[in-house]
């Protein structure tokens, strides 16, 4: 089930999405008619299935056709996976920031690290390590950098 929190900051319409995107998700009802500027906050999207992807592309292609300026922020790992699988997933929108998955080498605690895309581009594939939030260990990026960040080089 998808939940949406709506707000407005100046001329930008903000939408904070949480939950799963699947066959019962109706983005046209949940987000409404395309606005001139939309910011889509995706931190809490846990999963998106193939019919969800289909609905997503249809909705945002419509936004693109109407000239909407779209920004995707705080993209969850589930969203980043789709961005890397489908070349037109963002439908011309800009990706501002994404979550990177980390795992502690000592206690295996999972952590997420939010980075702006412009900072990621500067870092290249040299991703930083983090201090584990639960023990004294070091958390390392837990995916294949070339795969997870493949969208940066498109």
């Amino acid at each position, binding site marked *: 089930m998808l939940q949406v929190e709506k707000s407005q900051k100046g001329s930008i319409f903000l939408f904070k999405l949480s939950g799963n995107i*699947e066959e019962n998700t109706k983005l046209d009802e949940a987000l409404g008619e395309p606005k001139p500027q939309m910011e889509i906050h995706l931190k809490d999207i846990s*999963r998106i*299935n*193939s*019919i969800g992807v289909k609905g997503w592309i249809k909705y945002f292609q419509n936004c693109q056709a109407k000239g909407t300026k779209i920004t995707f922020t705080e993209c969850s790992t589930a969203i980043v996976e789709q961005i890397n699988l489908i070349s037109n997933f963002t439908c011309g929108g800009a990706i501002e920031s994404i979550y990177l998955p980390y795992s502690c080498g000592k206690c295996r605690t999972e952590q997420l690290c939010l980075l702006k895309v412009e900072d990621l581009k500067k870092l290249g594939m040299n991703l930083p390590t983090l201090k584990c939030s639960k023990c004294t260990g070091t958390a390392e990026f837990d995916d294949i950098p070339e795969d997870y960040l493949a969208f940066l080089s*498109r």
Partner: protein
Amino acid sequence: MNKSLVLLSDRKEDQIFANSVAAVSDLNLVQVQTPQEAVKIMQDSPPKMVLVDGSSEALFNTFHETVSESLGLYSENVQPNHIHFLSDLPISKAGLLVHSPILGSFIKRDPEQPEESGAHYGRIVNAAIQGKPFGLNEIFEGTAKVQKIEMRNISQKSHILEAVKIYLTAGKWPTRQRSTVLTALDELLINAVYDAPQAAQGSQSQTSPTKIDISQFEPETNIAVTLAFDGTFFGVSVTDLYGSLDKAKLMRHIPKNHLKTEYKPKANTLSAGIGLSMVYQTGGGLVFICEPGVKTEALVYYRRTDSFKDFRNQFRFVSTHFYF
């Protein structure tokens, strides 16, 4: 049918893999050097398994031509269920091999752990050579607790996914691995609910999924979801009672890659057409067993790993078994 595993490959890691498969499935490993030798054995007494190095286009073409000329691609001595190709290439780049009518299974070579992968794959081969390998208990024989859930209509899908999520959380599966498994199960359920009946009817003009009337699905559209976990491998299967799986269509869908060509959603189909390729690309093994007009079982198979990097890099394959 002779109880041998005929290996056509001169690669060391393939020999290790084949040895391991043969040990688990109680087959005699026979290594041959040429496609002609392999085809001669198939002609005289079809073996239980033929394992071919498919990463060389030249070798694949020669094998394919030899089969075609000596036996005929659709001869009863050529049983795709028993023909397995190993490849270094991802399935999206395996070209002709994937679309060959003699392909039964595509195995992405695992040069790092051929012995372990062979033992894992051997369980599927073992189940298949005993008969129709329907049911996870055939594959997880004696090694795991198998649980079954019945799904009678689509509204139960979210409950099933939630139940599996609880099961995986209790088994301490890391978040992303758990999410990958759930998405894979979701896709198999979508196929069973939306695609299987459509394929059975041969209809190409369905409405959008957002307009589906759940009541259109017949009450007997029973779908069985089966779970098994042996401490290392987790398998989940979805069985429908249509038996409408089309291998050629399946092998067109799985290798789809939407990085070079844009994804264009079709308005007149129920499904998105990208579910199985999404599942395959996120790792693990896929097994499809179909008795046309009777039932189809689709199974995904994942190894739980310490890191997601290892999870993504795990041994993967697509294995098909059709019983006409």
